[in-house]
């Protein structure tokens, strides 16, 4: 079977790969690039635990074929969010507000929140709920997740 040459950017680094047509972006990230932050949950695009940012938008990497990516497409995973040892405010906020339990949904949740706040720094509560409900969590009950996003949007979180 023919392999395809695909070039795109992951966490600021250009990558140049030969992929099988059936390879998903999640498989590329986890198995080839050793970026295991994105998690495989349902594998069918329903749960959101494999969410990464594709050109800034939350995208379920388990249902995107890597071959679909174009030159110049930018993928951001949870590994690419912190600036060195300095966490992104949304990561700080998740920690400060105790929005993490088992942690499986957390990378997807954080990236979905990041995308929302980048597009709309002051979302209403309704907008936060609508956006975050794209991702399923089986432990937190969402309250602390919503509080974490609200805290960043109202800049209550420490920016140190």
């Amino acid at each position, binding site marked *: *079977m023919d392999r395809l040459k695909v070039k795109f950017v992951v966490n600021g680094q250009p990558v140049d790969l030969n992929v099988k047509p059936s390879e998903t972006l999640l498989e590329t990230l986890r198995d080839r690039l050793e970026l295991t932050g994105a998690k495989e949950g349902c594998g069918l695009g329903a749960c959101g635990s494999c969410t990464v940012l594709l050109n800034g938008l939350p995208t379920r990497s388990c249902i995107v074929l890597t071959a679909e990516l174009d030159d110049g497409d930018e993928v951001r995973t949870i590994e690419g969010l912190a600036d060195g040892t300095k966490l992104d405010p949304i990561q700080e906020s998740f920690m400060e507000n105790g929005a993490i339990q088992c942690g499986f949904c957390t990378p997807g949740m954080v990236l979905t929140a990041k995308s929302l706040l980048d597009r709309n720094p002051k979302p209403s509560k309704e907008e936060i709920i609508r956006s975050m409900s794209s991702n399923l969590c089986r432990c937190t009950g969402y309250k602390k997740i919503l509080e974490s996003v609200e805290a960043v949007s109202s800049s209550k979180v420490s920016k140190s």
Partner: protein
Amino acid sequence: MIALKFEFRRPKDVEEAVRLYGEFQGEAAYLSGGTDLVPRMKLGLEKPKVVIDLKRISPLSTVEDQGEWIRIGALARIFDLKENETIKDYFPALKASLEATSCESLQMRGTIGGNLLQNSRCLFYNQSEFWRRSKGFCLKMGGKSCNAIPGANTCFANYCSDNAPALCTLSAEIEFSGPDGTRRLNLEELYTGRAEKPFKLYPGELLTAIFVPKKKSVGGYEKLRIRGAIDYPLLGVGFSYGNGTGKLTIGAVGPKPHSVEMKQFSQGAIQEAAETLLKQVRPVDNTVVNPEYRKRMVPVLAERLVNKVMEGVK
């Protein structure tokens, strides 16, 4: 993991896409957002020899005001469309259905054409190949009888598009390009009424655009689902009103949407319209809720929706 070998092609225009389909003797799948196709390939419900990615055909994703019609490219994303000012102003039923479609991050990937051409769904069909093989193949997989209603020789799978009922209330038309050229038809003519093969499509035909008459309407869409966040509809009810006439459409019960025109909007008239629609559908036990409940929710959602919309007209 997709346990399937296929080729991947990215045509530059519609003609090339259709030609590729023919080159692989129809063992091909068109890919737009992939939110329906890729899970289907993972479950082994779709086994194409080539996946034809349409995303590089840019005219397929634009929205255009043509005077009497608004042309919506089939690859326009659900999320972009719900932010579109013309759709907000002219077609509130469509806007409501776009908002109700899945969840926000899938709306950012999924396209309106993909939503319209999603295959019909059933609890006994949208399962892994291992699961389905163990149960025995149903009518939708070439088997001899239905797995939801054992012994039945009719497929009861549900067509779960949220946007289709809304577009039916707006008398939308759709355009296909295929090996024999282009054709345009009313959306309601698309459906075969048979859930095994829900669309009247010729091999290789590609949905290029949706045309909605540019007439101001008021309207809405009500959706029955378990989780507000992301579910497919268990029942979808659309309603649009303009120039003294209303159109009520239900979807997600059986293989196609059903519509009824309304001139009166009293409680009695709404109940009568709901009764007319109920006579055309046969909900069975193939979703996560009891069929009797889905049936009873038809007049409930219709009444709620029509009253809400008509309240704004007064």
